[in-house]
Structures are given as C-alpha cells and as structure tokens.
C-alpha cells in the first residue's frame, strides 16, 4: 500500500520506536525565540549538557520586541532582559541569531520560509504552536513545549507519538474577495477548534494548489486552531520556484539534487488517510469571527447563530463568549463599530497581504475613530513594502506602518488593544485577552481588515472591489 506524504517524511526521520507509536524523531531544523527558550537553556546548563547540533537551531527575537524605534534599547525592562538573555544564550552556545539589528529579523514563521531555512521533506519544530506554517513548503512542522526544546538541544531529537492523518480537500473556484484566510476560517468554523486534534493534516485540491506560497502559509498556519499538530501541502513547481535563490536554500548542483528529492514528496494515489474531509470553495464568503475562539466565525453576511441548537455545556461557553464580546445571538455583524485594526502576525503579514490591503485603501483615508496598525512580518517584508511604496499608501491613509514583530497578535509588547475595544485583526486567535486584557478581537482577512479601517465598522469587502 502507498504512503501519505506525512508518513514518507515521518518514517525517514524515525531514529527508533520506543513503544508502538512513540518514536524518537530526528529534527532537521529547530527555530527558537526569546519567550519559550530561556528555561530550556537553563535546564541544559544545569544538567551540564552541551547543545548537540547548534547549527541546526536558528533564533530570532519577535514575540516581545517593540515595533517602533527598534534601533534604540528596548525600554520595557522585562522584555529587554528576555531579548538580552536570548543574545547571551545564543552567543554562548554558538547558535545563529537574527536579533533586532539584523536584516533577517522577523516573526519566526515568516523568516524561516523567506530565508530558505524551511525546506520540503524536512522535520521542523519550534516552541510555538504556529510552527505549522512551515508545512506550506511540504515539511512536517509543529509546535513544541519548552521541555521538548530541551530534548532537541540535548539530542536533535524529540520523543513523539505518531499522529493520525487527515486529508482536507478544497476544490472549486473562490469568489471575488475571498482569500486564503477566509478558507481556513471557514474550515475551522465547520469542524471546531478541536475537530482535528490528534491529526496531522494534508491540504489537497485545486483551490489549494492554485494558492501562492504565501497563501498556503496562511492556510497551514491556522491548522493548530482546529487542534491539529500541523498541516502540510505537497511541494510543486511553485514551491521550487519560491525556493530558488533563497538565502540559505541549496544552490547550483545541490539545488538540482534537492529538486529531485522533493519531486517524490506527494501522497501515493493508494495511500490511506485516517480521515478525509471535503470543502467546496464556491460556498465560502469573506469570514469574520464573532466569539472567543477561532471556530466561532461566520460569513460576513450571516448573523451570529442562535444558542438553541447547542447542548447544555456548549450553551454556557457560547453565552460567556458573547458576553465577553458584548454581542447578542442572532445579531448582524455588518455595521458594528470598531476601534482598532491590526494587519500583521505570522498568519497575514507577508508582502502579498500588505499589497492586497494597500490596494483596498489606496487613495482613501481611515475612519477618524479607528487606530490602524500595519506590522510587517519581517525586515525583508518591511524593506520590500518600502521599495514598492506600500508604506506610503498606508501612512497616507492614516495607518501606522510599524517595524517587524508579533506585536498586537498576542500583546506581549506595548501594542495592546485596550479593555472593551473592538479590533479587526488579521491574526489567528480571538481568545479572551489575547490582544490585551479585555480586548475584543474580530478575526478577518487583510482586505476585510483594510475596509473595516476605512469605514470604521465591520464591512463586506465585496461591495468595494473593482
């Protein structure tokens, strides 16, 4: 019987099985950042161990960094200590670090693919759940905890249970104004935040293969929001084109060799998945979330559902959620006043995201009641946007064009949404307090966020497309 793409990569990386499904898995690329790594470094030092393969770990500072004045020392003391600690640890252990002064700095899941560090067929981990993003290039990539970072430091391996496989097919043509973000929000809304727990997803179908590499990253990024370990997409000619001339990707003869290897990275026709789901692209509209988890999302033209279809315990969570958002069941979202717009995060902060948002706002001005932030995902994206004049389009419309980092996606730095305020955000989580204590997040695509900033309220972007 044939193998799935996931199984092909997994099997190649198993050093040994400890028990039935519990494997020692070899890791090709390990990314770290300032927030989840310090305790792992401490543990390694405390146990008198050395980092086994320092060249396979890459570090960047992203979660906790300011998005203005990055040339100055970080003013917030705890953040500064954390970033400095990362510098000290990397230096001591000979790990490549892209710190704030480096031209390659950015959100870890943006820079990995952009630098050609994320390659098809590899295993990739990072102490961050959105590591699933890298699956867009045909890699097994997933988030781990700090104890597991310690395992990778000590042995370049982690102990993992083999997940089950789930195939998600999306076929058909997308309507105008519907983006990769809407596709993934739609899928999560259909299967819930725990719908894929225990599984590793492979996204297939013409809708997926028609997506650009950056759009594929948006899709894979949010795999974790339905509980999956990760999600991947079989590499094709677009993947190979994307990797050409990337800073750390193989070149010349090595690239040709690699290409040959990558061409075997697909699920065999007779491979068996543990589960399979089908979605039709034409049924998807621009999406917005209304609740406090990413599964609570609807088409912008729909009303918030009624609670009478829910079971007892679900009813309580649903009511709490609406109460937090100050929304009511059955209510319409279009026309709701908003206070903030955040375009950024590892889901939607790449150049194509910024271009598409800029297209919408070009020649217009943001609503006076809205504060709008654009935070590019990396220094490279920032530079590219400046080179294309996109930064000017944003600033002319009254947006703040900031410097790279996670920013208001999780509100660890100063970029927080104040209590009770509504923020249309291109990030991936609308949990209570995610963007700041009491902040109310509405997840949407970059173009939906852009039009919301202009109108000052939740708006169906389809009415504003040429």
């Amino acid at each position, binding site marked *: 019987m044939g193998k799935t793409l996931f199984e092909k990569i997994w099997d190649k990386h198993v050093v040994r099985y*400890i028990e*039935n499904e519990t494997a020692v898995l070899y890791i090709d690329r390990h990314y770290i950042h300032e927030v989840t790594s310090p305790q792992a470094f401490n543990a390694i030092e405390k*146990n008198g161990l050395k980092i086994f393969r320092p060249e396979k770990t890459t570090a960047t500072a992203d979660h906790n960094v300011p998005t203005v004045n990055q040339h100055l020392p970080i003013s917030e003391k705890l953040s500064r200590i954390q970033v400095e600690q990362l510098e000290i640890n990397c230096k001591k252990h000979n790990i490549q670090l892209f710190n704030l002064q480096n031209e390659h700095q950015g959100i870890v899941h943006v820079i990995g693919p952009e630098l050609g560090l994320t*390659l098809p067929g590899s295993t990739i981990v990072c102490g961050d759940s959105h590591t699933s993003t890298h699956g867009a290039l045909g890699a097994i990539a997933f988030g781990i905890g700090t*104890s597991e970072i310690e395992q990778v430091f*000590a042995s370049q391996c982690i102990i993992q249970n083999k997940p089950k496989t789930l195939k998600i097919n999306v076929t058909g043509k997308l309507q105008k104004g519907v983006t990769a973000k809407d596709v993934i929000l739609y899928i999560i809304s259909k299967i819930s935040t725990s719908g894929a727990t225990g599984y590793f997803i492979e996204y297939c179908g013409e809708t997926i293969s028609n997506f650009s590499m950056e759009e594929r990253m948006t899709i894979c990024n949010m795999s974790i929001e339905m509980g999956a*370990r990760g999600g991947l997409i079989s590499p094709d000619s677009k993947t190979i084109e994307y990797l050409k001339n990337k800073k750390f990707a193989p070149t010349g003869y090595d690239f040709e060799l690699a290409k040959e290897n990558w061409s075997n990275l697909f699920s065999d026709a007779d491979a068996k998945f543990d589960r399979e789901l089908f979605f039709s692209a034409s049924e998807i509209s621009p999406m917005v979330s209304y609740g406090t988890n990413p599964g609570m999302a609807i088409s912008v033209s729909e009303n918030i559902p009624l609670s009478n279809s829910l079971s007892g315990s679900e009813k309580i969570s649903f009511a709490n959620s609406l109460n937090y958002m100050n929304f009511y069941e059955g209510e319409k979202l279009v026309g709701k006043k908003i206070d903030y717009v955040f375009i950024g995060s590892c889901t939607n902060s790449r150049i194509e995201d910024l271009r598409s948002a800029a297209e919408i706002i070009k020649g217009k001005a943001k609503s006076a009641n809205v504060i709008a932030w654009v935070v590019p995902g990396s220094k490279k994206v920032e530079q590219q946007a400046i080179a294309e004049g996109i930064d000017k389009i944003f600033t002319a419309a009254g947006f703040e064009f900031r410097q790279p980092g996670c920013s208001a996606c999780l509100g660890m730095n100063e970029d927080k949404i104040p209590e009770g305020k509504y923020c249309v955000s291109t990030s991936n*989580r609308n949990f*209570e*307090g995610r963007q700041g204590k009491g902040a109310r997040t509405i997840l949407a695509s970059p173009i939906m966020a852009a039009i919301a900033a202009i109108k000052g309220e939740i708006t169906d972007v389809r009415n504003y497309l040429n």
Partner: protein
Amino acid sequence: MKQKIEKIKSTAVPLPIENIDTDQIIPARFLKSTTKDGMGKNLFCDWRYDVSGNAKNDFVLNNSEYDGKILVAGKNFGCGSSREHAAWALSDYGFKIIVSSFFADIFINNAYNNGMLPIQVSDDFLSLLFSHLIENSKQEVEIDLPTQTIAICGTMLKEKFEINPYRKQCLLNGLDNVDYLTSIKSEIEKFETKNETYYVNEEDWLIAG
C-alpha cells in the same frame, strides 16, 4: 529523575468550562520571565482577579471550600498556544492531575513533561464528577496509575483511562526524556551519517549572520 506518580487520593477543584485555552491558563503578559518559578500565582489570572487585583469571589480558585491536587475541567482543555508556562503554572499551583473529557495535543505533552498526569474520561464520567464536586466540595477522587483507574470515592463510580505505555513508565519511575535521549546518542549519530541530508548549507551558515 522526576517526581513519581503512582496513586493519588485528593479533593478536587471543578472548572466546568469548555475550550479553556492556554491564554486563559496564563496570559501572555506573564511570559516575560526567563525562569519557571512562581507561575502559580498568575494561574487563571484574568478569571481570578479583577482589574485592581482583587480576588473575584465567583471564581473557584478563590473559593476556600475547594482545594486539592486534582483539577477537573471542561472539554478541550489546554488548546491554543504551545506555551509550557501553562503547565508550569498548574504544577506550581499544586495540581498533579488534570481531568477532562478532551485535551489539546501539545498540552498533553507539556503536562507529562512536567510530571503531571492528564486523564481523559468520558463525557458522562466528567458530568458525574462535576455534579459530585459541585454538591460536595470535600468529595475525594482517587487515581490509581498502575491499574489506570479514576474513582469517585465513597461511590461505585469508577472509570478506566488510557495512557501511552511509555508515558506511564516515565511517571511511575520518575524517568526523564532528556536522560533517555542522551543515553542513545551514538544511535542518533549513526542515524545522522546514514541519512545525510541535502538540506540547508550549514557551512555558509555560521558566517552568514
């Protein structure tokens, strides 16, 4: 060596909320520490304290009737971020066992790696647990790891739970994953030579930055 778990009999704290994500267990603003210490005081911070830092009376951790080593929570516990700080906060607070009818993947690993035991029970057993605990805050619950059972003390109510055999051995014997991995280092080295990859050109690598 880690702390072992074999049998635990304790009162328990009920938290009948579904989809409790790690941002609720410990909000991001408490992630600025470079150590694991003292996370327990910020466990469920935004549910536990109001804006001025006063304890909210309606939250169960502020109810002096309830305490114990066992947390019983609604379905899909620990979803969201991979932050192990959530496990550190629960463990630092004093919980050894987390019971729910469903757990998020990464949280399960993080719990085990910190010597805690996540127990997945059926929806029915979870409702029974909640109703007993809500009725009687002194209700004890007994966990027996060797036989993989969880019981509501003083009743006939009992359920068997699943656990991965490797995880079970680790908890019973206080084994540590890092010790295990470093003990097979030569096998890992052999694997590396056998599976030489064409991946990132690491010779350029260290000069590149």
